[in-house]
């Protein structure tokens, strides 16, 4: 499987996660969101950017608590909770946001 972005073919796995993190660009996230019928706002981008920063440092997506706390700091304390994150990413902040951010899918009992 693959997606087409600006004339480039980017391979994805069966679940739509891109296989090579280096091929990610903001357009990838835009396209994935579009396919899900969703529009990416500034708030979505705060989440996506933080996921990528965290992944750069730790080679893993942040735990939900780490993410909510950081979003609380960036967007205001009333938004630092998973209820807000589910509003942004209804399919689940861990999986849907990671996919848009070009990160591998979190595995295990999550």
């Amino acid at each position, binding site marked *: 499987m693959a997606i087409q972005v600006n004339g480039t073919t980017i391979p994805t796995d*069966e679940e739509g996660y891109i296989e090579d993190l280096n091929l990610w660009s903001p357009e990838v996230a835009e396209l994935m969101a579009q396919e*899900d019928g*969703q529009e990416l706002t500034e708030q979505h981008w705060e989440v996506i950017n933080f996921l990528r920063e965290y992944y750069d440092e730790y080679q893993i997506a942040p*735990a939900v608590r780490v993410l909510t706390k950081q979003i609380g700091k960036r967007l205001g304390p009333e938004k630092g909770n998973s209820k807000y994150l589910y509003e942004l990413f209804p399919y689940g902040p861990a999986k849907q946001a990671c996919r848009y951010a070009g990160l591998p899918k979190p595995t295990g009992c*999550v």
Partner: protein
Amino acid sequence: MSQDAFDAPPLSQRPEGLEVPSARPGRSAESRSHRAGAEHQEALGFPSDIPDDWQDRALARMEELLARNRSLRVYLDACVHCGACADKCHFYLGTGDPRNMPVGRQDLMRDVYRRHFTPAGRSFPALVRGRELTWDVLEEWFTYFHQCTQCRRCSVFCPYGIDTAEISMAAREILDATGLGQKYTNEIIGKVHKVGNNLGLPKPALEDTVEGLEEDLKDETGHDIRIPVDEVGADVLLITPSADFFAEPHVDGLMGYAKVFHQAGLSWTLSSYASEAANFAMFMGSYEHMKRIAERIRKAALDLEVKRIVVGECGHAWRVAYSFWNTLAGIGQGADADDEYARALQDQLDRRYPVPQHICEMTRDLVERGAIELDPEANAHHGGVTFHDSCNVARASRMGGYAGGQLEIPRQLLRASVPHFHEMADGTTGDATFCCGGGGGLLTDEVMELRVRGAYPRASALGEVMERQGVQKMAAICAICKTQFAKVLPYYGIPRETVISLHELVGNAVRLDRTEA
């Protein structure tokens, strides 16, 4: 992926006597797990592609398993097709696919067994309903043996005690040997071998995560409650599912354990090397991989010089720990004379405590001897609470050293932690508990419709007790159950937040007023 192409069935008002659906062959044939790719097969020593001699390999593996596990042969021989199991599987009740009747699932292997491994079947297959192991049959195995959560509810009702879980584990072993592995399970086992947990969470990320949780605990309670990692010389090594670090509502349970340890004044630690309680190798029946995963825990216990090993809230992990750790890795009693590491560990561990011990057992004992005190009013805001028995705990283990302790001890803790506890309907709890629908390696999104349908009996019982008793929370002691319910309950109109960690409730109730000595 944002739009699901299916609807959940309407909840039943009579969860104690669910209506049996009429058979709809092929109803769930499309719910197929992803196949493991070459990378995930090779990491476990399985063929990366389908070998030309796949049939020989499958039959050879089956022959080995029949010789090694006498129970498997008994299960394949003993069934008289009485029908007692037919309406006992949550997947049959939720899908109506006759291959999800336990006997229908077992027959996938039984028919092949008769054809290839009985004298009558070898000569006159048609007379004994023998079935040649063709590629199509193997594909059918892949589909339907990955529609079994290995919950063993059917075996409770089988007059011969036939255990479908064991047949499904054997089938998956055979599939792995022919190159037909399942992606979800095999990828995860590879991560445990490499990094130490299902998530692939490396030590720096684990440390960063628990540091954040310690800050949260401080903000919430005003106490310096620690979550130590790799502390040599701690008394207790806590082995817990990595979902406890990562996901909700799991993480609130981890913070609950930390409060209990803190208030009881116990020294404890996590291990970054063995940062996973789950042992997914059980799902595919692989003794070799189960052993490798269990040996990580033994090594961590030796390196950290702990006196006790306690297991966090994880259903099948407790089955593996309680029933298999001793023979897999010598975590228990009675090591062979030449098993150096097992002997060293057994000398090191404090025999006054069970090895291993479940976190619920540990906390209950602390309450009993007054080392911690629980105030149920701290959970009054949750309203009524009910309890979901996880299948592997309820039907494949014990706690407290007596039969039924695994059912009673979590309830004792819950009753002491909440003001209003209510049971779900008879026939849906205890050793007849209904699976969450996500166990046994099925907690993967490509089989979401199956997962939702499989949760139908439990969701019905939960919906009924919510209506009858005003219950607002369902406590669980398994990472898979928690994730599965948080995902699928909303399909039934039940809020995601309804499922909660037992130790979150315990943690809320612990009186944190110990004065430092």
